């Protein structure tokens, strides 16, 4: 407990996350009543809201997958189709990529261009490996005649996993743009804000993948 008037008022954020004092605004109470929040907070917060909306988009595909999982139209089910080895390598790639992305954040915080570029390249390479493995799995299934048009179950599978893959691909495009922007523009505030959003996006895709890994691959192969 702290006395009124001290730096820590009731309901305030003791860690001052995002409540760095800005010009003309004496203090923040933690409920935005102290005036407009600084740009970094606004950008990060807005992007969080976007990520939440994206999670809802994925939830629709998860829901359709669970509804259609038994609608196999005489075709194969998860146990016949999925190879957990491939999925394990995919998962490892994506998680390692997220780790590299975290390292990039540290390099960006230190404004070290060389390490920023190295870790961004590593993030991208691991992401690319993930996409390559996923494409390999998809083409293999289609080649065997088990493409998305085979049954409603496969439709839902390809849509859910493919939607995640499309997000990773878009993320790679964004990552390439960021790799060009750091050397061209330096560690400007706007560029660092943009990187903050990218890292949020990249980590969020990991969380979605954990959902896919569990619901599609793990539960799919252990239940009869």
């Amino acid at each position, binding site marked *: 407990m702290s006395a009124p008037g001290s730096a820590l008022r009731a309901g305030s954020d003791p860690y001052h996350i995002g409540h760095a004092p800005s010009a003309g605004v004496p203090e923040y109470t933690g409920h*935005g009543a102290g005036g407009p929040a600084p740009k970094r907070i*606004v950008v990060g917060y*807005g992007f969080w809201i976007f990520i*939440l*909306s*994206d999670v809802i988009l994925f939830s629709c595909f998860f829901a359709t997958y669970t509804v259609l999982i038994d609608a196999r139209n005489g075709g194969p089910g998860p146990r016949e189709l999925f190879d957990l080895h491939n999925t394990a390598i995919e998962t490892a790639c994506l998680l390692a990529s997220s780790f590299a992305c975290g390292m990039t954040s540290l390099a960006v915080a230190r404004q070290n261009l060389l390490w920023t570029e190295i870790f961004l390249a590593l993030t991208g390479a691991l992401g690319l490996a993930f996409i390559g493995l996923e494409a390999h799995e998809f083409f293999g299934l289609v080649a065997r005649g088990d493409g998305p048009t085979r049954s409603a179950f496969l439709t839902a599978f390809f849509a859910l996993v493919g939607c995640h893959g499309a997000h990773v691909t878009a993320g790679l495009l964004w990552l390439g743009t960021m790799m060009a922007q750091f050397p061209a523009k330096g560690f400007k505030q706007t560029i660092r804000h943009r990187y903050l959003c990218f890292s949020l996006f990249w980590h969020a895709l990991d969380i979605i993948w954990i959902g896919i890994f569990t619901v599609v691959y793990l539960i799919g192969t252990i239940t009869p």
Partner: protein
Amino acid sequence: MTLLGKLTWQAIPLQEPLPLYSGLAVVVIMLAVAAWVLAKGYLPYLWREWITSVDHKRIGVMYCILAGVMLLRGFIDAIMMRTQQAMAYNAPGFLPPSHFDQVFSAHGTIMIFFVAMPFVIGLMNVVVPLQLGVRDVAFPTLNSVSFWLTAAGALLVNLSLVIGQFDRTGWLPYPPLSELRYSPGVGVDYYCWALQISGIGTLMTGINFVTTILKLRAPGMHYTRMPMFCWTALASNLLIVAAFPVLTATLAMLLLDRYVGFHFFTDTGGGNSMMFMNLIWAWGHPEVYILALPAFGIYSEVVSTFSNKPLFGYRSMIYATMAICIISFMVWLHHFFTMGAGADVNSIFGIASMIIAVPTGVKIFNWLFTMYGGYVRFSTPMLWSIGFIVTFAIGGMTGVLLAVPPADFQLHNSLFLVAHFHNVIIGAVLFGVFAGYIYWFPKAFGFTLDERLGKWAFWLWLIGFWVAWGPGYVVGLEGMTRRLQHYDVAEWRPWLLVAEAGVFIILLGIIAQIAQIVVSVRTREQRRDVTGDPWDGRNLEWSTASPPPSFNFAVLPDVTDQEPYWDMKARAREIGQLTRPEPQYEPIHMPRNTPTGFVTAFFAVITGFALIWHIWWLVLLGLLGAYATFVVFAWRDHDEELIPAEEVARLDRANRAARAAALAHRQLRRESQLESRE
């Protein structure tokens, strides 16, 4: 595969005179407007000040203009439908079935997505940052992108009039009818791509406004000091963020079915068409409240201002708003009780649907008690509000009737249902945005609208609405189903003739509205709002000049009360001068205008059109263009411009002088009143 995909000369409806001529008329009018703009040399001004503007007030005005123009288009569809049903008793009428089906589909799509949505979002754009006491929304450029993507969607829907055809499956494309097997044409594709593009715009608006309201408020503006309109805008935008991704996902699934042979909703391959109903209404029911809640916010502002009283039960109003926000996600199944989910499921959703009427009822009583004991001024915004309370209460009660599953089994897809949702959407949303645009018009443009024509418009609309849709309840109970191109039941005929008369009374109301704007613009010099506070308002939007400077506030206001401006005025009257001494003016950074939004929308239209007609190289080109726009935008160095302190001082001193004069005038009047009493 050819160079132009599915697009051939057959797409132009040369054999069907009605769509051809109406389409050509639209094209001619658009070309005439473009020629007039060019000839008068307005294009550079429009480009500089409007098309590339990232100012929330300008974007808001453009949203409202888009909505107004689309309202005319949607209303022409309404006249055509009413006229068809008035004529088509044992007769073919003047619209063949394929055309009639397009008309009712286009009417619903346009009225919801391109009238109600942009109107509500437009008013939020104009008002919310002003009410919060800040200079702009969180992401001004994104705001411009949102608007132009909405306009791009509207353009695609209207292109279908001349090139190809529109969707014939109703305003929601229910499968399996909307699947490729039963709807092989481009109609459903026009619908889906137009809504995907404008839906992305709406989602970004939602993100933008949630961030603005939660993170950008004037110092001292606690949650429990936010104006009611900001609260409802917050609720509405939270719903947008939570519901619009569902629409995007659902339409994406339908498109995958149609374009690459997936089996989400098909009747072959194990698809499940009822999954579409569940998904689309998981978006669709919150959508109703995305539209209605901001309208409730407008009524709260209007009723309190014109009753000269604070809003009754401010906190209960917040609870009611947020309760509706949450419960709106728990009622979607009442749109298809007849799916056969079973008595238990239907009962739960029926009860939830009835429960949502409770917070809505709380709101109605709050408005009534705000008026009670107040000094009520019957200006046009107030008339619309009172008309709303009566109309909406009746529409809400028919909704509760429909929430009873056994009753719904009888009334499902009848005209009773259609009358119900017109009763609530016209009665709540449309009346609300009409009240709102008259109320905030002087803020946006600096002069008030003509009251006499405004009152004509109100009475014609109110009477016209009831004459047009009262009969809908009757024929609905007599068993008439919706979307009938012709019929042979003699009992329905007189009612449909009455409804036809009603639609023309509404037409007179719309003419009165147009006349009101034209007359007011012509006589604007006599109706200037010099004080910036024409209605004796209570919230911060009335504390700036009309129209406000681009930066809204020279110095961000200090909020110490739930009705900040009313509080400021009261204190100023007490001390006999303005509450704040002249501040130290500082230069202000404002975001620079950018064509990013317009260019993005340009490529979105190209991509959408190419996707509809399967012109794959053009799809690629459009996507590349959109990515290039993104990179160019990301590369720019100067995204802000500086407004010098002298300019800020000049504008703010003028506003302060006007307010001081108004205060002195008021003191003088009070003193003379006191003297005459003595």
